[in-house]
């Protein structure tokens, strides 16, 4: 799920252009006490590196951080040229150019099944940390998608957060009538287009059929002939009913945060990672994540929730010992809590003693009740399906395509396989 990770790294609005060097005092890298690391966790890895160096005196981490697009280019070039660092960010599952399946298949990642934490991963997380029955990815944090409300704006409008689809449409109309549209939407950054779609698909598609992915894999279901098209219609209905501010296609991720943070909209449909960014823009604001209703039975609602990018160890790591120390540290209660706190997510392992932020209580409850589904693309066979969906949604919103065309194109890409 490269695109959502980009958001987590808070670099997504210009992912391509977001790359920088974090290691300011680089050594030679030949030292046995030096670990090389490439990460997309801009804004949070810095603190974890500091804690790791403190826990391992004499050890120096030479690291770089970059936005998702850039990172994928660099890591693929480096892996195929034998110049990759010891530890690197790896996305869970498949369907992303730097995902677990993609990198493990040609043998670039070291098997981490022997690590103490590998067996403890909950089933849902384990399935996307593994390839061919072996664990390759130290997945430390998980995230959810839903409607994030600006509580102050909500109170001022006198409206309450909807729990059913019908309530949602009324909510949108009322909010629009008060000149504060319900949700901010920044479609100019194409990864944002999928967020609302995923939030709607969770309930619409997986609500009635939790085994939808297996059916897709077995060739028994398609996007075009499934509730995916109903979800896409709901997305369009939301737009027509004025759920979003005007000009979503000309608004980027950053501008959409600005709207929700300052109460120009009542909220934003996003991942939990956006909360930290909203607070940055409006330190006094209170923000809460709730499921986005997609049908009329509130109890049926499901939320998309999945692991974010974790770390893999280079099969040809120059310093394997330190590399393993790093992933073990990230998966330890201390490292994990540090990471998820900074990123505003939830830990993947139970019993880390993590205090959940009040804004995420709902998400935490959904995870405990097993009312979550993974981000859809993590189980897709290749990266093209997602790319087709992203540009397809932009085309739908700019009147260049119909949902049917886009879903059929996604089916064609899905069938092309890996």
């Amino acid at each position, binding site marked *: 799920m490269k695109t959502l990770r980009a958001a987590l790294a808070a670099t997504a609005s210009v992912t391509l252009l977001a790359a920088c060097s974090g290691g300011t005092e680089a050594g030679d890298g030949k030292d046995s006490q030096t670990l090389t690391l490439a990460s997309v966790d801009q804004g949070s890895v810095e603190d974890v590196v500091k804690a790791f160096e403190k826990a391992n005196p004499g050890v120096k981490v030479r690291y770089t951080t970059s936005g998702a697009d850039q990172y994928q280019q660099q890591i693929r070039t480096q892996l195929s040229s034998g110049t990759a660092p010891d530890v690197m960010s790896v996305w869970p599952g498949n369907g992303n150019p730097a995902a677990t399946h993609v990198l493990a298949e*040609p043998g670039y990642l070291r098997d981490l099944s022997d690590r103490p934490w590998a067996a403890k991963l909950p089933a849902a997380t384990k399935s996307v940390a593994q390839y061919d029955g072996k664990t390759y990815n130290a997945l430390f944090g998980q995230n959810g998608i839903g409607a994030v409300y600006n509580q102050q704006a909500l109170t001022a409008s006198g409206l309450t957060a909807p729990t059913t689809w019908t309530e949602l449409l009324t909510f949108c109309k009322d909010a629009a009538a008060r000149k504060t549209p319900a949700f901010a939407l920044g479609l*100019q950054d194409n990864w944002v287009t999928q967020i609302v779609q995923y939030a709607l698909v969770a309930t619409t598609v997986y609500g009635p059929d939790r085994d939808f992915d297996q059916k897709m894999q077995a060739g028994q279901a398609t996007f075009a002939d499934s509730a995916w098209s109903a979800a896409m219609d709901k997305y369009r209905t939301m737009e027509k009913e004025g759920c979003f501010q005007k000009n979503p296609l*000309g608004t*980027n991720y950053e501008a959409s945060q600005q709207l929700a943070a300052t109460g120009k909209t009542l909220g934003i449909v996003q991942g939990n990672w956006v909360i930290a960014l909203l607070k940055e823009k409006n330190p006094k604001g209170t923000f809460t994540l709730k499921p986005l209703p997609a049908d009329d039975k509130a109890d049926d609602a499901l939320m998309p929730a999945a692991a974010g990018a974790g770390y893999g160890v280079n099969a040809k790591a120059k310093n394997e010992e330190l590399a393993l120390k790093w992933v073990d540290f990230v998966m330890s209660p201390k490292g994990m809590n540090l990471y998820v706190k900074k990123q505003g997510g939830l830990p993947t392992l139970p019993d880390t003693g993590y205090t959940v932020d009040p804004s995420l209580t709902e998400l935490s409850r959904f995870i405990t009740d097993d009312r979550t589904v993974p981000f859809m693309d993590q189980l897709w066979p290749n990266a093209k399906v997602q790319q087709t969906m992203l540009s397809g949604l932009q085309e739908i919103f700019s009147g260049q395509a119909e949902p049917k065309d886009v879903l059929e194109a996604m089916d064609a890409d899905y069938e092309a396989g890996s």
Partner: protein
Amino acid sequence: MMIAPTDQPGKPVVPVPVSARAPVRRSRTASTGWFLLPAMLLFVFVVLVPSARGVYYAFTDWDGLDPDFSFVGLDNFTDLTRDDDAVQAIWHTLLIALAITVIQNLIGLLLALGVNSAIKSRNLLRVFLFAPAVITQIVTAYLWRNLLGPDGAVNGLLGGVGLESWQQNWLGDPDTALWSVVGVTVWQYAGYSMVIFLAGLQSVPAEIHEAAAIDGAGPVRRFWSVTRPLLTPALTINLMLSSIGGLKLFDQVYALTGGGPGHATDTLSTLIYKDAFTLGEFGYSIALAVVLTLVVAVVSTGQYFMLARNEKAAS
């Protein structure tokens, strides 16, 4: 000049065959052939050999990662003809290049004529109008991304002067996104074209103009029959540079729109990047790069010969 242009033979350091006085021209300069060596070494090592080696991937199914890949002949090229995104990107590339070439040179020429006149601010303007050309492309793109937003300064300015109806969703609307890319590029490089045209204009001796003026020719007539023919070399350089630049345009498109909305502004260059690194179709992306090379080569050689003929006709 420290050496006077005389015919006195002097003492040659390297003996020159006396008999070679007239046909000497060739052999004399031929001994400078080794001057080429350092530049050629760098060029061959950095550009030519790696490009030639790169072409090989166009005939493979490599994903850019797996060391295990096979030779697939022309498959990538046949796939390309069936790929709507690629066909569309070729049209966008040609359209953007054509639009940039025409608009940038037209504006550049008008600006050049303006600053080549008697206006008082001419020296200041020459310096100022070229300045955007030295700014980093991605910096320009960041700046314009902000300016062209729905609440950006461009819409703000239009609203401020009572032109609300002109306000647009510049980068988000497929109808305006492509033209916004063209506009930003022209904004940055019109001054570049201007400077080259200006150089051409300054090579036109003022006496010719005065003579033509005395003969009763108006400014338009003077431009057409006196200035225009002498501008041909400047026009040649300008057209070549702007069309090649337009065809290969990458940084601006990627940073402004990322090829979107949808594929509305995808060009060959952005598609090459996406296919290689986002979709993991490295071989295919190199096949696209080969197509881009051919397009640029055909357009620029065609232009070169056409302009060379004109130049000959003009002189």
